[in-house]
């Protein structure tokens, strides 16, 4: 079940602290904080070179990981069963055959884009690695808040969320500060909580496509 939410008045809440931190809060069309949203800011800086995508309880943890290009991501398996992590996504096709523990080689993500992770033996396991050329990347927490060690200012901004219906992420500019106004992102919100095994993703996608054709 989906609800179509319209665009609302936009605002960026950025908070510049003494430690030079800006906070970006993303809310959905209804003004509710939106977790697992990727906030990418184009600003000078040095991104982190490694990242970790755990598999815990037959789920990818975190569900959404945002990395800059060139980042090596480790896929440690903390379950007592094996996983077969793969990606058929264009920016990075790879496959980690059935393994325990942490594979010896991390996977390096060189091309920007969205990489959807799956486990070949656990179909419901879906993870997202958002690869961007931007150095500043963060994923919102449960309060929909992402923090950046940046000075307040006007920055080009990119927003994405797994439920974002568009093929391209949202792009714009925003005046960021420690108290940046909340950024609304019109996502399709599943009535159910993110399910362990989505019943019919194709149907959703297909329906979405049909809707667009109708528009």
């Amino acid at each position, binding site marked *: 079940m989906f609800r179509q939410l319209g665009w609302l008045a936009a605002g960026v809440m950025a908070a510049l602290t003494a430690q030079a931190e800006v906070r970006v809060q993303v809310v959905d069309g209804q003004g509710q904080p939106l977790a697992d949203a990727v906030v990418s800011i184009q600003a000078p800086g040095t991104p982190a070179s490694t990242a970790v995508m755990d598999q815990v309880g037959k789920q990818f943890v975190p569900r959404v990981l945002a990395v800059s290009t060139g980042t090596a991501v480790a896929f440690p398996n903390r379950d007592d069963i094996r996983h077969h992590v793969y990606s058929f996504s264009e920016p990075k096709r790879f496959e980690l055959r059935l393994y325990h523990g942490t594979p010896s080689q991390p996977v390096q993500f060189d091309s920007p884009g969205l990489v959807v992770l799956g486990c070949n033996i656990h179909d419901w*396991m879906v993870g997202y690695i958002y690869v961007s050329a931007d150095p500043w990347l963060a994923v919102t927490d449960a309060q929909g808040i992402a923090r950046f060690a940046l000075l307040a200012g006007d920055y080009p901004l990119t927003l994405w969320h797994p439920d974002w219906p568009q093929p391209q992420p949202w792009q714009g500019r925003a005046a960021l500060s420690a108290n940046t106004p909340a950024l609304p992102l019109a996502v399709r919100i599943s009535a159910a909580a993110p399910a362990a095994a989505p019943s019919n993703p194709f*149907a959703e996608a297909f329906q979405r496509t*049909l809707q667009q054709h109708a528009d």
Partner: protein
Amino acid sequence: MRISFFARVSLGVMLLLLLVIGSLAGALQQAAQQALERHAQEQLNIGARVFERLLALRSQQLQDEVRILSSDFGFRDAVASADVPTLRSALRNHGDRAEASEVLLLDLHGQIKASTSAAFAEGQPFAYAQALLTQLQNPQHLLVVPVDGVPHLLAAATVRAPLPVAVLIMGFEIDRALADELRQLTHLEVTLLVQTDNSKPRWLSTLLNAPAQQLELLRQLDSDSRHWQPLALAGEHYLSLAVPLSEAADYQISAFLHRPLNAVSAALLGLRERLLSIAGLAFGASLLLALLLARTVARPLERLARSAQRIGQGDYQAPIERLRVPELAALGAALGQMQHGIAERERQLAHNALHEPHSGLPNRTLLEERINSAIAAERPLGVLLIGVANFSEWLSARSGDAEQQLAQALAQQLLELRRPGLSVARLLDDRFAVLLEEASAAELITLADQCQQRLSQLRDWQGEALGLQVHIGVASYPQDAHSSEALLHCALAALHEAQMHHEPVQVYEQAKDAARQRQIILVRDLRQAAERGELQLHYQPKLNLRDGQIRQAEALLRWQHAELGWVSPGEFIPLAERTGSIAALTRWVIEAAVAQIAQWHAQGLVMQVSVNVSAADLAAFDVCQVVEQALSRHQLAAQQLVLEITESAVMQDQQHALAVLQALRELGVGLSVDDFGTGYSSLAQLRQLPVQELKIDQTFIRQLGPEGDDAVIVRSTIEMSHRLGLKVVAEGIESALVLELLRDWGCDVAQGYYISRPVPASALQAWLASDAAQVLQG
């Protein structure tokens, strides 16, 4: 035609059976038909479920195939590679493996990305997206679509990588093989119908292949109906059920299941045959039952009927059969009682018919039988017919059962005679008969005397004589008659003779009997003689010897009997006197004579006519009144009529006769004493009578001569009569000599054949005018 009880019962039982079996058969057949139809419907329902299940199973298998393929890592890799030729080859490879008709891959926009079938062109949108979606949401949903007019079962699965990236579809043609499989499973025929907007309906049927018949099929079936539909095809009958497979705006796919009804009919036929055989058995059983019934009831009844017939024919001796069935035994017993009763009553009736109730003696019938049997055996036989003349007088003086007592007493007397060959009978109240076989005439007469004495001397218990007047007539066979009737008649005639002549016993004499027969006829017919015009008066003229005139005539009665001819007055007058018809005769004579006098008078002929009156007449009726009436009717002078009264008549009852004669004399009628000289009267006696005339009997005249006794008597009679003032008439004059003698002696009037014989009135007139009369009158 009469139908026997047996046949009726059999027929009734059979008809009842027919009715029962018929209605049973009808009900059974209906129930069986309904049951079979329900069975067929049930079979169709089951068939439909099996068919759906089969398709679901096939769909499931296909979906499994599709799912397995869609989750194959290598396949997904290929899908992700987006290299269409690679994809197509992969699809074909897997399609061949699954023996699928087609394998398609759709992208998330519903476009056909790769296809192994020309029917689904790559780059085109998938035509059945809506149905596809339904199945994706509900894997149970069958995805059946028309492909080139053939129904295809499709199965779809999402290809995930791991998010959905494409939809994999595998198609499977629902072909003859599936239909045959279904047929094997359910024994049902299957027809698949594909109807699309833009092409003709297409068929697939296990039933038939000929297009014309397919069209016929199409016409009959209603794919929208969810009910059983009858279907007739090439002479075969089916019950059909439509199973909708798929329906969209522009196409409709249905399956029809057909249950052949021939099996149903065959089952019904079998049922009918079985019923027929049961009916046959039942008929046989009923026939046997009827035969048994006939043996136990009808046959004994027939035998009883034959017994009853025998009884009807008078056979009372044959025993009645004893029967086992209680009702029939009762009937037989009743029949036996009836037989006995009838025999007893018949014996009683026979006795009554042949015996007289009071005396218990045989009656006339039995008597005649005995006589007849004796005659038949030519055994001589004598009959004594006993008459008790004063039987009824004797009875009338007594009362109660006197008749029975008397009859029994008489019977007793007769039965005590005890002779071999003797039998006694009672014919009438006062008539008894005694029969004696092998008896001579003398024996018969002796027996008759014996009987007569026994009966007439009968005394009652007090010793008082009964005083019965018993007469017996005797007749015998073969002397007198040759039949019982004739013999009894003879005996009766003899009895009459005896009674008439007051003789105790009279033996039959044939001559007497003939005379008696004639007398009976005369007596019988005499009464009607006047009415029949058989009576006639003849007139004999009388010659007055003093003046030679003929002015008198005697009227003499003549009877011309229709059969016997002329009957002499000498014969019938005594009979008439005896039987009491003389009065009527005399009356007729007086009136006829007076009428004749009147007639002559009218013609100018004055005649004095004399009429004979007997003693019986004087006693029987008022002669005076009759004469007076006749005269006055014709207005005649009394002097013209003379009544001739016999001497004996006057003498019998002098007082009465005298009175009548006085009265007549006073009328002026002439009175004459007829037949003078035959009786014992004397002239002295005659002197007291008011008569004017005396008629000397012809016995004195006929032989009269100048000398002799007759001459003396006649001359002295004439002389004395004249002295007494009486005229003298002489009759029976047959010669001129006698006439002359009489004339000489002074006789007044002469009458006789010499003058004229008696002639009819007209002849008398003619004679008077004739020369002979003129000569006499001189």
